[in-house]
Every structure is written in structure tokens, then in C-alpha cells.
């Protein structure tokens, strides 16, 4: 059994129809409920719920403050490599993109870490493309071993791995894995991932199952908004979340909201997701689940991020570079996508504090994952 069995019980076009046919009365009924379920989530992400966003936001704010308090967690990504054997129509690292490839050496990784530590970070996210010969599991494991002593919390966003490979990395001190399905629309997924290991939709779909079985502490889920209708993709993400929470109950979950951003050889979004849409979605997730972490990256604009502090978001990054060596080694190497909020970490910290929130740098002890 895996999520695939649940996934196959649903039909994209049926869901789409259900979501678009929701009436305002149905939304109002949901908003009177104390406990929001998956069926209710469908109503909250519908076009009919748009006039109720303020109501949803007020409730989302109250729930988030109750469960997470007045805190926002900080993390920073570190790109280790832009080498990739996949063709993805929307990604700057795509194999058919004729750019110079770069993989950080030990010395370069440590130089980047020195820079990141000076900024104050204690939670780091390591990112690579999918190039098994150069940046496969041994490279990732080595990178974790190299930096483990300097961070309380190490996460990765890399290619899907086998269960045993995840187990190896967890025993090295890995805390979380972020793996986005990109889109849950199987046919669309194929058109955007025509070549490379990533073209295997089912293998990617079952990745969180392998992570759950491996005993990971946290799994990050999400869809890439722009490839397909965000409403239907988000329903599937929520379905995935609920399935995982019941199956791997010891694991924590987070949701991210990446929207397609410009990059070299870029792709225009098929379906636009406006700022209002994104606010609606953030609030809908919070109403569905009081405890899921909601994360917002520097893809979003300053104004948008400033306001999201009050909407249900619980963790954000700042000053991110999306190219390997971007912080201190090679600022000009190819970035995966352009960031939008370019403020410094210090500026973000001040913004958060000025809104009455505490900036949390450390919320994990590495000793919890390296006791074996």
C-alpha cells in the first residue's frame, strides 16, 4: 500500500468540476464548522470562497498564533550543484539548458557555510539537481557529514531516493526532506518532465511513503504552481498530507507554495495564481490543519511576505541564493530561478520583530538524530 492507491481513487476532471461548482452557501456552511475536513477544504479553495478570504484569514491568524505562538522560523537554502540529468521545461537546471555546470567542492561548501553562519542561520536546506554520478547519495552524505557540526537542523531538497538511501542519510543527521510532486496531473507531469529519472511520475508520487518508512522527522510537500490548475493540485496535496499523517504518524509535515519564477529558458505559467489566490490557499491549509508548518520562500515579493507573517505562515527564508556557490564562492553561476524579496537577513529579522513576532533560529537539536 502507498499513496498511489489513494491517488487512483480520484479523478482530476471530477475534482475540478466539484471545486468550480461550489456555491457561496456551501462555503458559508463550512466556515461555521469547528473541524474542517478534506471535503471542506475543497470548498475553501473554490472560486466561490473568494469573498470570504478575510474571514478565513482572521481564523487562520488566530489558529496559527494558538499553535505556533508569536514566532517565525528562519531557514536558508544552500545550492550544492546545478548539474542535472533531467529535462524539466520550467527549471533553470534542465539538462538541455546550455549553461556552465558547477558542483561545490569541500572547501567551497565550507566557505559558503562560513558566510551563512555569519548571517545567523542554524537551519539549512541543501539543494541539488539530479546527477547521480556526481551528486548522488555519497556526495550528499559527505556534504551532511562535512557541515553537521555547524547546524542544528539539516534538510535536503534533492532527487527522490530509495528508502535505504534515506535511512543512510537520516543516520548521518538528516532531519527533513522536501520533495514536491510539481503537479499531480499525470499527463501534464509527463509533458514537463520528458526525459530523465524525474519523468517517472509514480516513483515521485511514492517518495514520501519511502521517507515515512525510513523514519524521517519531517517531510515537506507541495505543488509547483503554474503547471496546472492550482486548486486541483492543492486538493491532491492536501489529500497526500492527510494520507501521510495517518500512515506515518510520527513524522511532521510542512507545505510550501512555490510559484513559477522567471529563469533562463523560462516557461510562462499555464495557469496564473494571483497573490489573492495564494492567500486563500494558505488560509485554507491552516483551517484544514492547525499544526502543519507553512513555509514561504524568497520567490515572493517583499509586500506579500510582510503580510504573510499574519496569515498562517510559520517559516521563511531570507537572502537566498539559488545558484551553487552563490553566497561567497561564485555569485555569477546560474541560478535556478530569480528571487523576488532581496532584503538582507537582518532586514527580514527586523520586519518580523516589528510585527510583534519572535525570530526563531534554532528549533531542533542535532543530538536527537545522531544518537545511534
Amino acid at each position, binding site marked *: 500500500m502507498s499513496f498511489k492507491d489513494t491517488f487512483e481513487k480520484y479523478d482530476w476532471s471530477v475534482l475540478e468540476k466539484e471545486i468550480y461548482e461550489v456555491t457561496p452557501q456551501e462555503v458559508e456552511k463550512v466556515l461555521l464548522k469547528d473541524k474542517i475536513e478534506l471535503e471542506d477544504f475543497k470548498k475553501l479553495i473554490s472560486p466561490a470562497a473568494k469573498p470570504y478570504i478575510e474571514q478565513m484569514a482572521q481564523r487562520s491568524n488566530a489558529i496559527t*498564533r*494558538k*499553535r*505556533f*505562538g*508569536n*514566532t517565525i522560523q528562519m531557514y536558508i537554502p544552500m545550492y550544492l550543484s546545478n548539474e542535472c540529468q533531467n529535462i524539466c521545461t520550467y527549471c533553470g537546471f534542465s539538462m538541455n539548458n546550455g549553461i556552465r555546470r558547477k558542483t561545490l567542492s569541500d572547501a567551497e561548501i565550507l566557505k559558503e557555510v562560513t558566510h551563512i553562519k555569519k548571517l545567523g542561520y*542554524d537551519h539549512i536546506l541543501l539543494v541539488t539537481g539530479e546527477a547521480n554520478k556526481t551528486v548522488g547519495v555519497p556526495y550528499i552524505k559527505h556534504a551532511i557529514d562535512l557541515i553537521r557540526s555547524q547546524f*542544528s537542523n539539516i534538510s535536503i531538497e534533492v532527487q527522490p531516493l530509495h528508502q535505504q538511501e534515506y535511512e543512510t542519510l537520516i543516520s548521518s543527521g538528516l532531519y527533513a526532506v522536501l520533495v514536491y510532486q510539481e503537479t499531480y496531473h499525470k499527463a501534464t507531469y509527463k509533458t514537463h518532465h520528458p526525459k530523465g529519472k524525474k519523468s517517472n511520475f509514480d516513483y515521485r508520487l511514492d517518495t514520501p511513503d519511502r521517507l515515512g518508512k525510513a523514519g524521517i522527522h*519531517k517531510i515537506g510537500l507541495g505543488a509547483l504552481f503554474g503547471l496546472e490548475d492550482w486548486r486541483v493540485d492543492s486538493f491532491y496535496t492536501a489529500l497526500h498530507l492527510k494520507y501521510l*499523517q495517518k500512515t506515518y*504518524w*510520527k*513524522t*511532521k509535515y510542512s507545505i510550501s507554495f512555490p510559484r513559477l519564477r522567471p529563469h533562463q529558458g523560462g516557461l510562462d505559467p499555464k495557469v496564473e495564481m494571483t497573490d489573492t489566490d495564494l492567500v486563500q490557499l494558505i488560509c485554507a491549509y491552516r483551517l484544514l490543519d492547525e*499544526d502543519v508548518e507553512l513555509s514561504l520562500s524568497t520567490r515572493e515579493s517583499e509586500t506579500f511576505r510582510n503580510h504573510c507573517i499574519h496569515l498562517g505562515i510559520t517559516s521563511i527564508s531570507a537572502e537566498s541564493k539559488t545558484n551553487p556557490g552563490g553566497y561567497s564562492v561564485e555569485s555569477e553561476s546560474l541560478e535556478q530561478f530569480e528571487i523576488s524579496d532581496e532584503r538582507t537577513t537582518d532586514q527580514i529579522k527586523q520586519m518580523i*520583530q516589528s510585527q*510583534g*513576532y*519572535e525570530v*526563531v*533560529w*534554532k*528549533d*531542533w*537539536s542535532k*543530538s*536527537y538524530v545522531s*544518537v545511534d
Partner: protein
Amino acid sequence: MTTDILKIADKTFKSRLFTGTGKFSSTNKMREAILASESELVTVALKRVDLEKESDDMLVHLNGSQINLLPNTSGVRTAKEAIFAAELAREALQTNWVKLEIHPDPKYLLPDPIETLKAAEELVKLGFVVMPYIHADPVLCKRLEDVGVPCVMPLGAPIGSNKGIKTLDFLEIIIEQSKVPVIVDAGIGAPSHAAFAMELGADAVLVNTAIAVSQNPVDMGIAFKMAVEAGRMAYNAKLAPIKNRAEASSPLTSFLNDIN
């Protein structure tokens, strides 16, 4: 009022309100609220403290005053991890007191009774003063007492829920049976909930979210202090019994007094 001191292991407490450090908007605000509450025991999540940094912000703000730090093992999923975390805390914070929290479920943070009992037994042997966070399970409380914990900390409702005392029937049994202090932990969302727990006979309460997340944590800290004192005073004064029926002002059997 007579002196009513709470004793746990080798420490005595004038205040029966224990507090936490999470969820505040700033460490300054946290310190002000805790000082205002006059709490003498404050739990600190080990996972939030930077043990390698000599001047961790939170610890700097809590040092001095009458506050005793109680490191907690929040974040661990097994007895083994909890023991490791406790040892780390003992070394770093120079205290053998530990609030034992083992919650493999990251959503509701519900404590694992089996791992908690295992860890408590081992930690007591290692010389720790173990304060276990547990379900309101009377049998588990007795089992923990048997392995040598100096108090038990049953939950009133799921942590951070602010729902109040939802485990009333079981708390009453625990309080009735316990040989060690009973500290109601988790779920207390309003001073009235705290006062109620104290009226029931709880020896202390632990409150975090309700203070940290309020609009004015300092005033809320004071409100909880007063509620806990009022509840304790009421308990000591013995509450008037609750009656379901009215008591007749002209009793039917008073004539018996005249006959006898």
C-alpha cells in the same frame, strides 16, 4: 493564610504556577511575563537553546531572579533519545532536573506512556529529578511513582489547545490516589481553568501558551498567579459541597430530637 509550600524533590516553591518559554513574541516579553507571574520554575525546550553559544538569548534573559530552569526533552520520540537529551541538558545547564516529554506524534504532541515509563525509570537511576508529562492516566501515575519520580504532570487537554480541564474524571482519581505532587500540564487556557485545577486539589499547574499568546502576557501572567493562589486557597478552605436537591428548611425528622 498558613504557609503553604510545595516541595518537589529537594526544592521548595512558594508559587504553584509553573510556566514555559515558548511562543512569546520576544525574549524580553517572555522575561517580563514570567517575572510578573512570580513563577519559580520555568521549562525551557532543549531544542530551542543554543548550548554551544555561551550567551544564548533565552538563557541570558532568564538568569538571575528566583527562576529555576527546567529543561524539557520536547522533540524526542523514544526513551533512548530522551535519556540522551537529559544528559546533554544536565551537562549544559548544570541541573539534574528534567521535564520528560516523549511525544512521537508531532501533531497533537501526545505523550508516549510506554517510552515515558521506560525513560523515567532509567533517568531516576541516573540521578535525575524527573517530572514526566503524561496522559491523565491514573495507573501510569502510580507506575511512575513506583519508579521514583517526585511528581506527575498529567495533561488537562491537548497541549496548546487552551481547552481547559477535559480530563476531569481521571485527574480526580489521580489527585485522590497520588503520593507525589500532581501538576496539571497542558490545555490550561484561562486563569479560571487554572483556578479550577487548583480547587480540585492539583498541587500546581504549568501554563505557557495562554500567557505567551495573550495580547498582554504580563497582565496575563499576573492573572494566572492570582487564579492559582485563589484556587489553592479555596482548596485549603474546603469547598462547600455541591447539592443536587434543596435542603428543607423544616426538616421532617427534627421531632426525633424532642423525643430522644
